[in-house]
């Protein structure tokens, strides 16, 4: 089994169009949540989201790519390019043969689905654009990354709602560990801030109308986000041999299913995933110096996650700094784990725990060591990044400091 390193990061989010901007904003506690501009928000009760602003792929993508990709795929292609450049990785023929592309998404081509629905049912036009199917399919991001980078390794999309990206990254970890791939481009992408999707989220009645305040007594719910996060994974030995900058070791992944309620999380299920992640990484609970929480800011998730942390870290539940960066980049669903992995990798590399922004007063039911509004410099031997999805699908990643 090979140990696996994270050597490149790429990201497009409400916090910026690069992993550097995304991390810097998170480190500074700057929220990217604002008024919704994509959709006429007077039609909606939800007025705020963490939108990717000023995204202009023309000039960066070819005409062929522009005409045949949904916004979610465009985010993924550009974030992947940046991650590879960041890794300083050049794909020899041999490496390209063995590099995987495993990309999570919750919905896939949501913008395309929405536009086509309007065209066919709303405008009653009798035909759709020929690129509709390729644009819609939730494997599009994985496909396009292989095409854009010239990769011939295993590639597919992964889906598990809010845990999609962590599940994708976990699969990529296993591929590189076992030698099924020599390297991997992995992460997640999502762009579903459409009128239809926003109406659907409204109906679940878990959305905040002001902002996202995870773990706070006055939190009102989730705020949606969008974007893509991509990691380059290589064998730790390969990374060291070529003198690559290593952000962190991707040390472990733990999965579980709640087998409970569709929308109410289970603390036992979440704790199980965290324990499995630690075991997979070969680390004791003591090694964890920071937890990037799922922390959606809903009434249900936050206390359940707090209880899960106490279960998994018996006795240390009030010691480990925990923050939710969804307070800044929103809940980007299938991209969530990826946006958060980019941040967690940087947190480990720099020994800085980013804050939960918009923090007022902690809910006593969320009895944790919070990081309110300002980052803290703290020794982090290893960190957890949590994703706990609707339908009870949990996926936790462990990243470890590389000296």
């Amino acid at each position, binding site marked *: 089994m090979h140990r696996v390193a994270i050597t490149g990061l790429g990201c497009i989010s409400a916090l910026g169009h690069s992993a550097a901007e995304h991390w810097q904003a998170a480190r500074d506690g700057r929220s990217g949540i604002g008024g919704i501009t994509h959709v006429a928000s007077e039609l909606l009760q939800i007025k705020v989201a963490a939108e990717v602003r000023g995204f202009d792929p023309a000039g960066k993508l070819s005409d062929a790519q522009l005409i045949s990709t949904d916004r979610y795929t465009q985010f993924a292609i550009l974030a992947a390019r940046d991650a590879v450049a960041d890794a300083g990785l050049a794909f020899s023929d041999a490496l390209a043969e063995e590099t995987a592309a495993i990309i999570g998404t919750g919905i896939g081509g949501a913008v395309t689905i929405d536009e086509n629905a309007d065209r066919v049912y709303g405008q009653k036009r009798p035909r759709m654009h020929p690129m509709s199917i390729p644009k819609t399919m939730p494997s599009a991001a994985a496909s396009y990354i292989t095409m854009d980078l010239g990769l011939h390794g295993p590639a597919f999309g992964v889906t598990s709602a809010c845990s999609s990206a962590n599940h994708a990254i976990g699969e990529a970890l296993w591929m590189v560990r076992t030698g099924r791939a020599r390297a991997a481009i992995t992460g997640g992408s999502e762009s579903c801030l459409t009128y239809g999707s926003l109406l659907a989220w409204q109906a679940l*009645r878990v959305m905040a109308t002001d902002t996202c305040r995870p773990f706070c007594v006055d939190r009102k719910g989730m705020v949606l986000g969008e974007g893509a996060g991509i990691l380059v994974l290589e064998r730790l030995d390969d990374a060291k041999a070529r003198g690559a900058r290593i952000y962190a070791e991707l040390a472990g992944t733990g999965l579980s299913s709640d087998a409970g*309620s569709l*929308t109410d999380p289970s603390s036992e299920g979440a704790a199980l995933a965290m324990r499995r992640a630690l075991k997979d990484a070969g680390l004791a609970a003591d090694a964890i110096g920071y937890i990037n929480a799922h922390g959606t800011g809903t009434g249900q998730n936050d206390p359940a996650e707090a209880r899960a942390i106490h279960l998994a870290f018996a006795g240390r539940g009030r010691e480990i700094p925990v923050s939710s960066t969804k307070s800044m980049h929103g809940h980007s669903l299938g991209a969530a784990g990826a946006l958060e992995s980019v941040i967690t990798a940087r947190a480990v590399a720099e020994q800085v725990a980013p804050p939960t922004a918009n923090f007022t007063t902690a809910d006593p039911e969320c009895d944790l060591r919070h990081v309110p509004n300002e980052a803290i410099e703290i020794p982090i031997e290893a960190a957890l990044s949590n994703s706990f999805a609707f339908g009870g699908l949990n996926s936790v990643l462990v990243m470890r400091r590389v000296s």
Partner: protein
Amino acid sequence: MSTDPKAVEEKVIDIVANQRRVDPSTLSLDMKLEDTGIESIDLVEIIFAIEDEFDIDVPQDRDAMKLETLQDVVDGVQRLIAEKNAA
């Protein structure tokens, strides 16, 4: 849409009874929603059915509208209908 108070009461009870799969006669307006045996998923479906039936929007903020008893629900619906008609 009819704002006849009796019609609104009957419809609200019908919606909750339908969600709980019980006979409407087993429900009364003074009952607390939680005592009717509903779970959180039932509540969002009940609110959806009410919004769809009366063409109103129940506020996203849980604190904005008291929905403890069935009477609270009826009162809330009446208020939203009146606000909508006034707009």
